[in-house]
């Protein structure tokens, strides 16, 4: 199915937000990777048609942004922040745990296609590091125990209650 067939009304709504069509490019690329986790060439060509761009113009933008995947990634994309503030509180150790538990290093995917590990730059959660993002969710103040549970929960149920947010830290006092 093409994107237009699948997401027709959503595409129309996205286009209505901007006076210039090209602004809808990143939103449409997100749409294209919503299901499969990555953007196919066919989708880029279709988007070029919708926005009256050339396919190279779409490709040019798509290749600039780290969150737009042009290759398949695992069902769960684990992104551990390795920037300085997280490194000060142990992010390298977290990467080590995941390596040991899943047998993959940064840039690798498990053989069953379930987990991809990436070491990424700051995700704006520096006061609650070490932290990682898995797909849409943040997990903060990580300990080895938490990492174990997150990986196990994701594997068995596809989600984990340890995800964080709406974010406030320090947490507000509970009773006035």
């Amino acid at each position, binding site marked *: 199915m093409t994107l237009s067939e699948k997401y027709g009304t959503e595409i129309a709504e996205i286009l209505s*937000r901007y*006076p*210039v069509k*090209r*602004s*809808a*490019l*990143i*939103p449409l*690329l*997100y749409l294209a990777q919503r299901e499969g986790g990555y953007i196919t060439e066919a989708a880029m060509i279709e988007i070029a048609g919708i*926005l009256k761009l050339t396919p190279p113009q779409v490709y*040019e*933008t798509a290749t*600039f*942004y*780290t*969150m*737009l995947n042009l290759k398949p990634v695992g069902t769960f994309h684990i992104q551990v922040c*390795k*920037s*300085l*503030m997280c*490194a*000060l*509180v142990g992010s390298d150790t977290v990467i080590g745990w995941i390596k040991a538990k899943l047998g993959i290093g940064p840039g690798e995917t498990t053989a069953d296609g379930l987990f991809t590990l990436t070491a990424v*730059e*700051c*995700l*704006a*959660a*520096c*006061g*609650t*590091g070490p932290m990682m*993002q898995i797909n*849409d*969710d*943040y997990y903060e103040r990580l300990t080895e125990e938490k990492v174990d549970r997150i990986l196990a929960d994701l594997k068995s149920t596809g989600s984990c209650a340890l995800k964080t*947010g*709406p*974010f*406030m*830290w*320090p947490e*507000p*006092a*509970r*009773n*006035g």
Partner: protein
Amino acid sequence: MSAIEHMPTYEPVLLKNMSQPGYTGSLPDYEKTGGYRALRNILGKVAPADVTQLVIKSGLRGRGGAGFPTGVKWGFLPKDYQGPRYLCCNADESEPGTFKDRQLIERDPHQILEGIVLACYAIGAESAYIYIRGEFVLGAKILEQAIGDARAAGYIGKNILGTGVHADVWVHRGAGAYICGEETALLESLEGKRGLPRVKPPFPATHGLYNKPTVVNNVETLANLPHIINRGPEWFAAIGSPPKSTGTRIFCVSGHVKRPGNYEVPMGITFRELIYEHAGGMRGDKAIKAFIPGGASAPFLTPDHLDVKMDFESVAAAGSMLGSGGVTVMEEGTSMVWAALRLMEFFYHESCGKCSPCREGSSWLVQTMRRIVAKRGRAQDLETLSDLCKNIAGRTVCAFGDAEVSPIMSTLKHWRHEYLALIHEAEAAHLLRPEPAAKRH
């Protein structure tokens, strides 16, 4: 008495609602605290130019990094221009060490939206885009929901509260690129292009989004507006370190402290107070070795600077900058060369590649730093580092160039001996290893 009892407390402004037990940030919750009152009192009642004057009078300066006076920036928009104008709310929050906008967005979205509509009214914009970093999936959802609620209640959209004023607001998600926090890269990205900063001038005030007059303001800057309107510019101007640094700041404390997190305090308290009182002091009561006062782009400072006041001018006089408000604290024992390398790796990864001093220079800097940290450095490396830094700073399209040399330049200045120690170790090891020097890279 414990340290906590001694701790000075200040009235929070931006974090006030969310500090109340049970506050969810929903529209009814926000309205109960007096939310959207500023909008009711301003739209159609006070002339847009007078709103700008109020903001100038308050002394509010941008919270995104550069600290430019907000009302003055609004005043740069051409007065007689008839076509569309735009407001962009910068919610890219990508400066390492900074995590305040995320909290403002996820916990009190209407405070930002009210600020956005007020700013739209002042500058005559009928469309606003919130450019939010792609990773903030939850934040984008919360904002979308809040916009929907505000639209239904008549605070956003066409003919707001029956005043004939239009202001629509949309969320636009970025997709993972630090540089898109730079205002002209943000505009390029919002236009569906690669996020490459534009050569300035012209400035966004005249040639911004779609080449139209545009204002870009940070989330925290905009969130201050309802309070300035409700309580008056004099009230705001009396907080902090007047006349140049007025109001509160949300400082984001990270690193080796007992209680990292966001603390809203008046500008002008000392780093010592922030680190030792609010953030609880050093983890394990170790000695402090260094701190970064304003995000990854700000030069490192030493314990000698703990009594510097946290306002724009005092931090600049100390040789650094207040920047984005991210304060990162490092304990005794942390290698400063390693820390500078970590940040250099960040900048190397994030350079957009548009101009050669930054694109090529960041690659050379990161290679040289890696070599030194891996104890394969050589005596000339320090000179190489200084030369590279001097040839990048001030010679690039955007301020990223000045930012990326800060960690190395400042650690070379204050902790040169640590670089030398690593190089001496490398040289000594090399003497034992009969390998031609040319091969060491």
